[in-house]
């Protein structure tokens, strides 16, 4: 029997297939289904501090607007008592997930304020999270803001959060960084126990009829996996940490590739959103079958086996390789 188990952030997992942050963890029922299907850990949907702030201010705005202005209608909506606009709702849910699931639950956090990051991180730990994933999403639009300033701030933030908690900490990176290896190294030095590559940003689109900017969710395609695959391959062995590959993981082959690049886990979202948990057993079976066929004993055995340092042809991951791909393109006859 092949050994599918792996260790990620110090957590012993029965296999490398982890459910990434998605709405599937919003419901106990769907989270349980993930576990039953064979998923080895779940990353909870993200707690967005900005969203909490926004919802709180929005609620206050609309509950206050128009009040105490007109003698007949001093308010327009009833006072409902407590509103779930604090992190409590998220934390309670995290606690409930922990109670219902036997697999590890990783909290996911996207903060905006320094105080917010650390206090929410602590609260997640208190609520029972097995580990924490920081989601460093920050879109810069100010031309005067330098990359160095941002990177420094993020490194500092990771250190602060790390010092505030005792559970393992993973950091989800953006691919849009000039020197990914340097930044990854700094983040790990700051205390991260793992790196999740990469954050996948939803990009707005244009509606040419309405001349408006539109937002819609596009699920990932398998080809998108190549970006994190490349970077984990490059970083593996150079920056010592646990890697998680996310984006584009749809099949057992994708999981295998992730492992070979050097990831400890492969995180899946789009497939789960599209098909639910039912595709998981097949992926795991296929994984098992492939490994048996190729006579791999364990997942650990293959982890990093095709990383840049182990592949025997390091340039394959660098610029020359890019040129080669272009050269290989021919116009169809």
């Amino acid at each position: 029997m092949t050994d599918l188990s792996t260790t990620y952030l110090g957590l012993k997992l029965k296999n490398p297939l982890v459910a990434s942050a998605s709405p599937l963890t919003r419901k106990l029922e769907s989270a349980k289904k993930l576990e039953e299907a064979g998923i080895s850990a779940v990353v909870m949907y993200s707690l967005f501090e900005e969203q909490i702030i926004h919802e709180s201010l929005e609620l206050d705005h609309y509950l206050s607007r128009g009040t105490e202005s007109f003698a007949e209608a001093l308010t327009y909506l009833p006072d409902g008592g407590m509103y779930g606009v604090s992190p409590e709702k998220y934390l309670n849910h995290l606690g409930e997930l922990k109670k219902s699931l036997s697999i590890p639950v990783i909290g996911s956090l996207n903060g905006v304020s320094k105080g917010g990051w650390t206090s929410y991180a602590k609260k997640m730990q208190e609520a029972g999270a097995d580990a924490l994933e920081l989601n460093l999403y920050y879109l810069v639009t100010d031309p005067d803001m330098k990359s160095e300033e941002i990177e420094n701030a993020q490194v500092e933030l990771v250190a602060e959060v790390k010092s505030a908690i005792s559970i393992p900490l993973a950091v989800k990176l953006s691919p849009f960084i000039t020197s990914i290896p340097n930044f990854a190294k700094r983040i790990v030095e700051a205390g991260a126990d793992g790196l999740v590559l990469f954050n996948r940003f939803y990009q707005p689109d244009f509606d040419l009829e309405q001349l408006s900017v539109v937002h819609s969710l596009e699920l990932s395609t398998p080809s998108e996996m190549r970006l994190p695959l490349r970077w984990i391959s490059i970083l593996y062995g150079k920056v010592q940490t646990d890697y998680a590959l996310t984006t584009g993981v749809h099949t057992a082959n994708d999981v295998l590739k992730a492992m070979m690049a050097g990831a400890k886990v492969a995180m899946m979202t789009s497939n789960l959103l599209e098909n639910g948990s039912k595709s998981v057993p097949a992926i795991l079976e296929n994984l098992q079958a492939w490994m048996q066929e190729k006579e791999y004993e364990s997942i650990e055995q293959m982890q990093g086996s095709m990383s840049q340092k182990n592949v025997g042809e390091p340039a394959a991951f660098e610029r020359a390789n890019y040129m080669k791909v272009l050269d290989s393109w021919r116009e169809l006859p």
Partner: protein
Amino acid sequence: MKQPVIMIDGNEATASVAHRSNEVIAIYPITPSSAMGEFSDEWSAKGKTNIWGTSPLVVEMQSEGGAAGAVHGALQAGALTTTFTASQGLLLMIPNMYKIAGELTSTVFHVAARSIAAHALSIYGDHQDVMAVRQTGWALLSSGSVQEAQDFAAISQAATLKSRVPFLHFFDGFRTSHEVAKIYKLTDEELRLMLDDDLVRAHRARGLSPEAPVLRGTAQNPDVYFQMREAVNPYYVATPAIAQEMMDKFAKVTGRHYNLFDYSGHPEAERVVIIMGSGGEVAEETVKFLAQQGEKVGALRVRLYRPFSVEHFLKGLPKSVKSVAVLDRTKEPGATGEPLYMDVVSALVEGGRPEIKAIGGRYGLSSKEFTPAMVKSVLDELSKPEPKVHFTVGIHDDVTNTSLEVDPSFSLKSDGMVSCVFFGLGSDGTVGANKNSIKIIGEETENFAQGYFYYDSKKSGTVTMSHLRFGPNMIHAPYLIENNQADFVACHQYTFLERVDMLKYAKEGGIFLLNSLYGPDEVWENLQKEVQQDIIKKKLKFFVINGYDVAEKTGMGGRMNTIMQTAFFAISGILPKEQAIEQIKHAIEKTYGKRGEAVVKKNFEAVDATVANIYEVKVPAEVTSTATRRLPVPSEAPDFVKNVLGQIIDSNGDNIPVSAFPVDGTFPTGTTQWEKRNLSLEIPVWNEDICIQCGKCVMVCPHAVIRHKVYEETALAGAPETFKHVKSKFKEFSEGYAYTLQVAPEDCTGCTLCVEVCPVKDKTAVGRKAINMEAQPPLREAEAKNWDFFMNIPDLDRKLVNPSTIKNSQLLRPLFEFSGACAGCGETPYVKLVSQLFGDRAVIANATGCSSIYGGNLPTTPWAQDANGRGPAWSNSLFEDNAEFGLGMRLTIDKQTEYARELLKSFEQTVSTELVDAILNADQSDEAGIQAQRERVVELKAKLEKSSDTRAKDLISIADTLVKRSVWIMGGDGWAYDIGYGGLDHVLASGRNVNVLVLDTEVYSNTGGQSSKATPRAAVAKFAMSGKGMPKKDLGLIAMSYGYVYVARIAMGANDQQTLKALLEAESYDGPSLVIAYSHCIAHGFDMAKGLEQQKLAVQSGHWPMYRYDPRLALHGQNPLVIESKAPSIPISQYAYNETRYKMLTQMNEERAEELMKEAQQDAKARWTLYQQMASMHYGNGSEEK
């Protein structure tokens, strides 16, 4: 043990007792009592129990009549039951009140006493409503303060259980119901001691039960009815003593002692004022003050008015009394005196004191101020050898000369009392902040405290006034802070200085705090002359804070509440600064904590940023300003507008004499044009280069401040320099015609709906449209001139305008303009459109509600006239009867038209057969036909003018009805779905040609968001706090079932063309029409600028399918139902969760929200399927017109 104290208003104090001492509460919202029902509902929803440990069942009914019926039934079944109401609501309960009393049923109704709609509606307080039920057999117990409202609620409950006579406990609407005061709290234990469980069980035992069946409600005949009516007498005889017994018991329990008649003043008083309600507080304080100075005066406060105990009354009156002045807060036209006066007179005669001279007067109607000076004036009148036997006090009656002279300089001196007046904008949170401040003072210091709040009658740009008093002694001053009495005056909006005289309140040496755009060194030069004069003359300490800047930096937006509250405490020194800040922060946490940390944090930051930004201004010795306060209305306004309406605008309405007013409530229309409120700092600006002249912005503007005109280019002569115009793109009016889109800069509320609806996007920057918001101040003057010029350009002749397209329809002049509706109102665009299409021949019946308030509240009203002086004739009857009211108008028009036609035929010889035929057979289906008929009627009148035949005079008097009139019945969903539904149904069934426009906001908007039957499933509203569990009533479907009613469901934001078509069709249909219009509303809790987008989503989600049901189609073998929206294409949640009314349920109870949303989705699906099936039915089976 120290008695617990609380800061609370009269409504909450009363409701607290009622909720703790009842099992069933059936209510219907009506100002100013609504809050009592709302509190009860909220408490029950949160599981709060009565003193027996169970939560009362609270139910909202469809009308007060319904509430009274439900109460009667609940009582008959044996539950402790109550209700809360006021005004017309109480009148609707009268039939049941007779029954309840006739059956000797223990219950208490709590009434926030309010004026009755007579010549006009008023939401404010007096005793007209309670006096209208004094004959029903109920005991009437009057409380005069917040403390008493709480205490008497308990006393009346105890008394009714023992006496079996139902009690009506009343207190003055607004003055007591809305005053926040520090009172001694009635604890559960105390209330428990007041209520005898045996009596509760006896009440229960009298309930109907099949285990011990009895029968009530028999029909009786002349032989026995009379005797049985008399059989109750012993109970009424016993009731006063029982009430006194309960007052005595209450004194033992709480230490607060009351009597049926409470006397105060000089023990050997010769002149005594007799009075009920909050006025009694004023009278008591005044006579105590005067008695201290040796005057032999007193006040007798009537607590139990019915049953009127002559014995107790006389016991209360000192033997020394020589004359009494009885003050009634009501009016009974034609009576020999008002009710309390009449009772006193007969009591004096019957009780053996006929030598006492009695005079009677009216005071305080509709919350008219009642002050110590007025009490003194009444007592002075008693000193005169020939006092006025019937008088009024508090007004200047120069017609029948009833009024007494009042010395404005007289006031009571209260040691240590501090008085503060604050002026704010409704939206800036001033009132809320002051409620918090007075609570802090009342609860965190030893001071007694009082807060009273005054609002103007607009829904946008409201000016609020907060009157706060505090001091070491209990406050008995139920009147506003008077001129020259305020220790502290605060102006929270800088622009108020140019139109409001607020420093008249300041006392010498007082403090003036101004939220100023200018710093301490610049502000003086930017003040008006009058303001500078007052500051110097009154030696005021003058402070400024740039609250706008602090608000912007701390994310408070337009909310000045926390900032100005902090400034108040920092300057006034009521509490040490640190303690004050701690208390403010504590209050912030308490108020906003449940809305999330971010809100608390934001407010904390505002508190911290405020203190460092307060500056004292060094006041120069001389007045330097030449700028003066603005006139309330322009000098060119008509005299009535200047002398009456302008005075009201200028807060001077109290001083207008009786003679200045119309005698029957009739007012001129078109008066909002004179009240330039100058509300918005941003206004839309036309980009004429890219405008396609579609008219959509004109159509959606809720306040009719954007208009477009096509006109002959010659009209441009003399145009102001900045007046914009381009060539007309209208195909009917092209060569030689110019086009202008103009904004009224001083009337715009800045809602931005116009910008949102503009379909044009600048190709070089798609964020720019053909109309864009820009700063108003630099544009104001020039655009005001442009507006005036624009308005003087003649409108196109209506007969040249085909109104069936949006752009053309918007060439018709709106005859509904600049209303006081909320910025971005979803109702008024429909109302305005009706006024454009049919206004010059419309008669409108308007149900009470938002539309009657923004449509008919003084000072100025929005219904307007065209250049010919024609326009909608508008009237509001009541809330419940509007359909019938409108039908009545139709009946008159029909009858008069019929009579005119009959008469016309007999004048064939006189006026010519051709003219008679032409009039009788006129085709008035379009504007040209109507105009031709108007001309014929003019000709007819001219021909008949010289006739001496009385029938000719009759014909002249009704000839105008020969021109087709358009009857519109308008109102909200509270009227149409609930209280007025029975009448509406009957009117639709009548087949008469009326047009009903239902402005469906899916909630009672005007009274503050109570659930109606139009409220959709899953939405939160008052009385549906956990989300409405039942689906929205389908009013249109019910109306369609008649088969001969034209029905349309419209949503302007989703399809403006369909809206236009439906209204045109409805009006053209010679029968009843019902148009139900989706009206987004502030009560939905969303960005009103997105109102049209939200309407679109409502339609797309299937929540609001649009259709027209035209019975005329069936006559031609076609299905009358035409569905005009597509199958639902988005989930209901995508529409709903943009609105707080839905979203807040997900934040309060996610599981229930999900469940209800799922059901709401099923509702939409089922509705769509049903409509589809109906629309596909075959109508060709012989029903075609033959």
